[in-house]
């Protein structure tokens, strides 16, 4: 206990230095926490699972994937042909059609804030198949289910993320007309029926797929010709399977089916698909992981080492006195290390906690567009990581000064004093 008191007293002896070291640590831990959050999210998205897998079916050779809507029903079932073939249950599939539109009819008046990209899908699948939304629980899930039900009941409904809603200067219950960017001549009159739960889908939107289909039918009735996108309107089919064995079977069923020849399709895990997209950002991700993070941690260790070594140098006489009073060299070493750890842990913890609260609750995520991810949130694990980084760098930075404290020679110090 006395030992602990001594540590605290030493920390409080030069409050300015302690404050500066803690502030420096906090700033750098904040950056480490942010970068780690982005990297860990991307890692989670690209790590292959062995159970409860999500598969994506897309056009085999081209990007963007554009398949005829006639593929949708068969692909959603996993393309079973034989009695023993596996059939995907309705709740375990979802189709996506991308609809990009602007609230401005005149292209010259369009700005990023007036543009909306929406998934056209079967409304119930929002709650059962969309990543993260299918894992909601409690009151958030119940609230979102009400929004989904409203979209299912209203073909012209629109569910939109809160951030996008703010950019559009709209509110729930409001109406807007979207002039399509990727479906020439199509405009959709939509009613905002609700918002996504805060998080990943803050900038996204979802519409009823039947409304998009009927808008294309209407185009044909009005112009007398089929819409040019009619055979390329299905972008993606999601399937959920139990394990890798089921995945292999479904992939075999689909890829060998004669029904998908023009265009051909491919089946892959969602993580594999995302990894292919992220390949273009290879250098950036490598740089963040192997250059930025280590360099920041090094700077952090250097700042702590500097502060602790200054502190040890200033206290050589006191350390010599402690030795005379019976403190063993290793106790002095521990004293210095514990001081550094106390600063590192408290600064690391408070910085990571502040980053977690500020980014997630204050800013509603950190905006860093990479592939199709636009916003990142700080997971709670980052708070633990921040504390560990603070502790680790404090330990690394204090080893040499602590060794120096341990090696203080009483005779030399008192000779100088004398």
């Amino acid at each position: 206990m006395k030992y602990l008191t001594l540590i605290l007293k030493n920390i409080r002896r030069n409050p300015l230095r302690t404050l500066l070291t803690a502030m420096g640590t906090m700033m750098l831990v904040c950056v480490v926490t942010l970068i780690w959050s982005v990297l860990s999210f991307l890692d989670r998205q690209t790590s292959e699972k062995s159970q409860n897998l999500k598969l994506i079916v897309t056009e085999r050779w081209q990007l963007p994937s554009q398949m005829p809507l006639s593929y949708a029903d068969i692909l959603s079932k996993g393309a079973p042909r034989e009695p023993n073939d596996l059939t995907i249950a309705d709740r375990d599939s979802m189709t996506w059609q991308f609809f990009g539109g602007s609230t401005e009819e005149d292209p010259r008046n369009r700005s990023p804030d007036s543009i909306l990209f929406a998934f056209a899908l079967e409304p119930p699948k929002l709650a059962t198949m969309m990543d993260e939304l299918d894992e909601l629980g409690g009151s958030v899930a119940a609230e979102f289910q009400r929004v989904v039900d409203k979209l299912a009941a209203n073909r012209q409904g629109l569910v939109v993320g809160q951030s996008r809603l703010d950019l559009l200067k709209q509110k729930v219950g409001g109406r807007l007309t979207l002039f399509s960017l990727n479906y020439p001549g199509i405009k959709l009159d939509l009613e905002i029926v609700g918002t996504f739960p805060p998080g990943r889908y803050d900038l996204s939107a979802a519409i009823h797929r039947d409304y998009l289909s009927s808008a294309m039918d209407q185009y044909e009735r009005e112009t007398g010709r089929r819409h040019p996108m009619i055979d390329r309107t299905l972008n993606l089919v999601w399937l959920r399977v139990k394990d890798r064995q089921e995945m292999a079977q479904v992939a075999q069923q689909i890829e060998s089916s004669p029904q998908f020849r023009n265009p051909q399709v491919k089946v892959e895990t969602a993580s594999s698909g995302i990894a292919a997209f992220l390949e273009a950002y290879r250098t950036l991700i490598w740089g963040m992981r192997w250059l930025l993070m280590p360099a920041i941690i090094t700077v952090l260790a250097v700042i702590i080492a500097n502060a602790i070594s200054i502190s040890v140098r200033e206290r050589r006489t006191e350390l010599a006195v402690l030795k005379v009073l019976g403190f063993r060299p290793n106790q002095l070493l521990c004293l210095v290390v514990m001081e550094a750890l106390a600063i590192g842990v408290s600064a690391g913890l408070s910085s990571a906690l502040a980053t977690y609260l500020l980014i997630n609750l204050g800013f509603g995520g950190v905006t860093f567009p990479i592939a199709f991810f636009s916003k990142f949130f700080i997971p709670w694990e980052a708070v633990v990581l921040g504390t560990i980084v603070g502790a680790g760098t404090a330990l690394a930075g204090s080893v040499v000064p602590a060794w120096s404290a341990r090696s203080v020679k009483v005779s030399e110090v008192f000779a100088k004093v004398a």
Partner: protein
Amino acid sequence: MLTEATLRWIGGLGAAIVCVCLLAISGAVPLRYNFRNLTVRWRTTLLTVIAFTFVIGLLTVMLSFVNGMQRLTESSGRDTNVLVISASATDEAFSSLTPEAVSGIENLPGISREGEQPLCSRETYLVVNQPIEQPRSEGPKRRFLQLRGVDNAEIAARVHEVRLHPGGSWFSAAGVQQGDADDDETVVEAVIGEGAARELGRDASNWQRDSVKALGRLDVGDTISMGGRRWRIVGVMQSAGSTMDSEIWTYRPLVAFIFGKQSYTTVVARCASSAAAGKLAQFLEKEYKVAPIKAFVETAYYAGLSGTNQQFTVAIMVVAFVMAVGGVFGIMNTMFAAISQRIKDIGVMRIIGFSRTQILTSFMLESLLIAFVGAATGCLLGSLVHGLSATSVVGSGQGGGGKTVVLKLVVDSGILSKGMILGIVMGFVGGLLPAGGAMRLKPLDAVR
């Protein structure tokens, strides 16, 4: 001739040196006093310099990445070219132009001609999924390749001002050639950008091609697999520094046949001058009624792909700012320690006649010297990445589209200037408070 960037660099470095020199001249405290203090406390000085070096070095590397992207988008495209895509498209990849729309464009006045042939390239651009033949265990199983089908390779080369490396040729009229002797199947002829050739050459450990060993990239005669067919490289484009560097070109009808993409995506027309190009783009945008289209002077189109660069720049600035603040706290610690160790010195100096301003100057000078050395070392180390290859995506930054590009990291005078200025500012801000504290010390209190 000195470029604007060089002038900026000279300006930044000059300002830093002038700042230090002015302080040295205006301060009556001899400069060697400061040097000696820094060398006596060499461990503390060194640790602070290391922190500065890392912060500025990282900033240099990060900015060189964005600079490489910026250079790429700036040097892609010609101001005498007009690029046309369909009205609803946000990017070439989403464009769809009918043959009627395209043929209507190429006969318009203002487009340069070579004999009877208008210098107008009709193209189909698409992004292709390529399964990686022997993927690394942890790596992705496929990659995206950018394929451009052109109707007439010679015309396309003239319009885009692209040349081939010696030993290469443009694809034949048929666009295919006989495969290996023991293989009846024909192979598709393709011309490849240098960057794409380097990227695909990364699988060299699997292929062990002689060309990859010699050149670090694929070369004429090498084959790749794409769209279920074998493709033979018949030429490598001298395309470094443009987005074409990451593309593969082939005969357009084969793109339609293999990938089922029948429509054109892009028309690029060559005009006699930039003024003529501007006029043509305006005409196409406002008065062309054959099909709904968008027309850009090509340089404006590529400038619009700098949205990603801006997003990255903002992110880098945020990271650099937070790191810089951390560095400032570091140097504050050092300077406060320096002052607390020399309180008696300060008292003596004040007693023998040095003014408060001279004391302030002396300590500021120390702080700035540390910052200067750290920043210069950081710039120097950061410069080592100059010329290295990297991959990224350039796009409008509004989602949808974007081009995967292979770029070179560029450390230029502008970046070095920013690094030096940030370093000096960090040193100034970090030194100001401690130096101010030293200045306010009362002589008798200090020596007591």
